[in-house]
């Protein structure tokens, strides 16, 4: 490998981690919190603690299933939080970027 290529790769990796949830498109400040919560959610998905547990909640809902249903709801709340606090697209820029109907190369053929 070329000298320094590893450093370059690390630099690119850092740029990747820093880009989406931290605003590559616009001016939103860097927000590492969504990344951390996402990692916790992914870790919580592998719930070895309920693996062999067949306890029934309310007499019918297996606890393992109940846990993952709750996890899906928490995921929705997490994404609501992320959309509100770390939207990666600058709203004004995005509005300007959205093309008016029929203004693309093909559309202009009409």
């Amino acid at each position: 490998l070329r000298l320094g290529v590893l450093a370059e790769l690390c630099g690119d990796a850092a740029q990747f981690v820093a880009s989406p949830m931290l605003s590559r498109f616009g001016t939103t400040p860097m927000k590492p919190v969504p990344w951390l919560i996402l990692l916790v959610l992914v870790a919580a998905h592998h719930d070895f603690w309920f693996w062999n547990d067949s306890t029934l909640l309310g007499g019918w809902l297996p606890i393992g299933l109940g846990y993952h249903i709750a996890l899906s709801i928490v995921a929705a709340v997490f994404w609501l939080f992320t959309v509100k606090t770390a939207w990666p697209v600058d709203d004004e820029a995005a509005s300007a970027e959205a093309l008016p109907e029929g203004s693309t190369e093909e559309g202009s053929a009409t």
Partner: protein
Amino acid sequence: MTPLIIIGIYLAILLVLGVSSNRLFKGTSVDYLLASHSIGPFLLLMSLFGTTMTAFSLIGSTGYSFVHGIGVYGLMASSSAILHPLCFYLIGLKVWSLGNRYGYTTQIEFFEDRLESRRIGWLLFPVAVGLIVPYVLIGILGGGGTIEAVTGIPAKYGSLIICGVVLTYVFLGGMRGTAWANAFQTCVFMALGVITFFVLVKGMGGEDGFVASLKAATASVDESKLSRVNMPHSKYFAYLLIPLSIGMFPHIFQHWLTARNADAFKLPIVAHPLFVLIVWAPCVLIGTWAAGDSQIVEMVANKELKSSAILGELVNRHSGEILAGLLTAGILAAIMSSLDSQFLCLGTMFTRDILGRRASDEGDDKNTVLAARGFVIGVVAVCYGLSLVVPAGVFALGIWCFSGFSALFPLIVAALYWRGLTKIGACSGVLVMAGLWGFMFYDSGFGADPKYSLLGMHQVIVLTGATTLVIIVVSLLTEKPSEKTLSRFFNEPANPK
């Protein structure tokens, strides 16, 4: 007869939708293929979700839960609830932004531009089409199987009817028709899904009260199905990679490009986990309860009933004729809302990526649309033929398809966020994935072996690991795209000039 009439009416409504959206067709390929970038938050949510939820989600999940119990929800659904929105957020938004800026219609156009190479397109096209084939197959198999279970019409004719209806409204309405049909069908299958759940709880539990029926249905199930005691940790962990496949689905890519603006993504990102919950939780519960139904167990053991036909059989058994017709229409809605996007995308890729780019005049534009339709009919005919002989079940085929697309996920992430990705690195990664996938699919008896592994690892781990490694190593050793190209993708200001 009544269910057949209701299903017929439902299919007729879809055709009317196709005709209606055709009246708004502007005669240009950008309108046919991307609905003139006019799709707002609600339609985007419905079309993305409807496209994501397939026969795999309803019929496959029920059948797989029948075998493996409640662990199937964690295996596929809650991971999708977390990771699908991540793909919309991390990849969809960026793709939409670049697509608007540079006028892409397909995934391959993006890769060719980003990597300054047409070779990547020629390589990606057969791979993407090859991976979509099993995806289309599960829709055809699921649709035919459901119609057969409820109406008695042989699956091969049911599949043919489904293909014909979807092809007709896609051809008439293009992307706008597909989005409308998706929204309509997503509403139908979610509403009827909830009704199905209540009806089946009552029927399977057999008690007067709803909660008493829930308890009775659960009580008959073997305890091992109510936990994950028989599910290997390694398999569960490997399946975490499966939802990432959505990041490389070419038909989802095309849907992202239809968004009116970036804000249109907010609703799909937030609501998707809840929609996944509404569809998957009832299916997993119904499949698990079916494992406590001795008649169903016996029919499956005697091979009188495929696991993918369990949902249809339960609907047929526990509901009246009218309701059975309505509920079957709901199941078919979920299946068709994916097939339509896949059909449209296949046509788009063929005309844009193979036949050529950007029609120069109106006459060329019309020929482009015609060529797209011809190619789609050809691929659907091949899929239909395969559906008559394929040995694997809906769930197994789905997992093979998703494994291939998941393995390509690092490619799209690298293309969007890593300046160091090279065309040779990308081509090498795609070649390694395609070669390995083909070998393992063959080695598994074309998906027939449900416990297949290579070197003790699930196929998705092997494929994703090998592809990622090859992309990184080869890219580091080969020449990057020009600085001019890199600056277009990494340093460009948000506002187009």
